[in-house]
């Protein structure tokens, strides 16, 4: 999809999306740690973590079913689903969260009043709140990423699809007068995924990897029935099909 810029030039409009292949995902949580390292997410500590105060922009949802010895478990990494019809945005009283023209649901920390309406409205519970001021004990702030701000106490934060990386890639592409190439930009979680279970790219480009995978028969979205229309697409697990 393209849109006309004011100077009459055609400009590519991206629609960022993510595909997570559950058949490959092993629940190793590399994405979880990579995300926290990239996005300056503080660790909560034992007491706070046990209270459910640890902030994760992506987390592993373990779904355990069955009884011994017929047990089944799936690991589902859940980042912000980047809904096309996000329930969180509607309820924000101050416009501190919005969907940008590339489809990314962003949070404006400087605007957020911390009412947590969006966190309760999100059917995926992927929004996080800063209950306390973030802390990096004794020099651990040295690893903070200067491309990502540190969020103050009292505001909501969430997965941004690593917007700092997208911005970087988009600028590089614009400087070179070309569109962002497929696979040129990936969030930290996708970059590290050891089993290659995660993909990221432009859903507006029908030939991109994510578009291709999103058309898979295995493709589904979490809680599709809610009509939120997420841009995080999952690929289901397969069976080994030899007749037993």
């Amino acid at each position, binding site marked *: 999809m393209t849109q006309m*810029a*004011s*100077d009459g030039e055609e400009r590519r409009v991206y629609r960022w999306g993510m595909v997570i292949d559950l058949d490959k995902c092993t629940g190793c949580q590399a994405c979880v740690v990579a995300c926290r390292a990239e996005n300056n997410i503080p660790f909560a500590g034992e007491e706070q973590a046990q209270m459910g105060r640890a902030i994760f922009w992506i987390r592993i949802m373990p779904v355990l079913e069955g009884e011994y010895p017929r047990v089944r478990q799936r690991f589902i990494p859940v980042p912000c689903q980047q809904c096309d019809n996000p329930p969180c945005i509607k309820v924000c009283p101050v416009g501190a969260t*919005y969907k*940008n*023209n*590339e489809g*990314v649901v*962003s949070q*404006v*920390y*400087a605007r957020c009043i911390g009412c947590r309406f969006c966190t309760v409205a999100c059917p995926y519970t992927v929004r996080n709140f800063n209950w306390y001021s973030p802390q990096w004990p004794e020099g651990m702030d040295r690893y903070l990423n200067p*491309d*990502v*701000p540190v969020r103050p106490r009292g505001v909501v934060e969430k997965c*941004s699809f690593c*917007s*700092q990386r997208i*911005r970087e890639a988009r*600028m590089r592409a*614009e*400087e070179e007068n070309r569109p962002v190439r497929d696979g040129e930009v990936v969030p930290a979680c996708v970059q590290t995924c050891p089993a290659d279970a995660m993909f990221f790219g432009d859903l507006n480009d029908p030939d991109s990897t994510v578009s291709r995978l999103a058309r898979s028969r295995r493709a589904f979205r979490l809680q599709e029935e809610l009509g939120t229309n997420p841009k995080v697409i999952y690929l289901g697990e397969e069976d080994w099909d030899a007749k037993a």
Partner: protein
Amino acid sequence: MREFAAFLLGLLIIVGGAGYAVAYANKAEEVVQPIRFPHAKHTSLVSCQTCHTQVNDTPHAGLPKIATCMGCHQADVSKSPEAAKVRQYSDRGEEVPWIRLYELADDISFSHRFHLKQGLDCQACHGAIGESTQWNTGFGKNGTNGPSGRDLMGFCLACHQGRGAATDCVACHK
């Protein structure tokens, strides 16, 4: 009637005080650079990039390194006593402790390189600083020329809107 007068007086004091506080906060803090550096003298000879060497390659323009200065000032090209200071810094093996005039808030992502590649020139944002003949006239920290802390967002946004550039929050905000 007297109450009304008192009320008006009180209102005046509050509004006036607030106005003064705002004005005071925005008053350009005059910066005394370690070397009295006249921009105009240099820009008539060389381009901005000659000294702000990083500007084409990185997000930052970069403050001149002493080695850059010494490229010209090795020889006694200027009789100015200020120019002699450059050599003194160099002899001591020190960098000139330039004071940065333009600072962005922590949550702003800005790339000089990108904006230059879009065809903007330095003046578009930095105004007439290159023409300053005096070393410090009017150019204070977050000063009155070019983008300043006062309404930086408005300044950026006006240009972005005019050129059809990105106006999305996360295009500039981290």
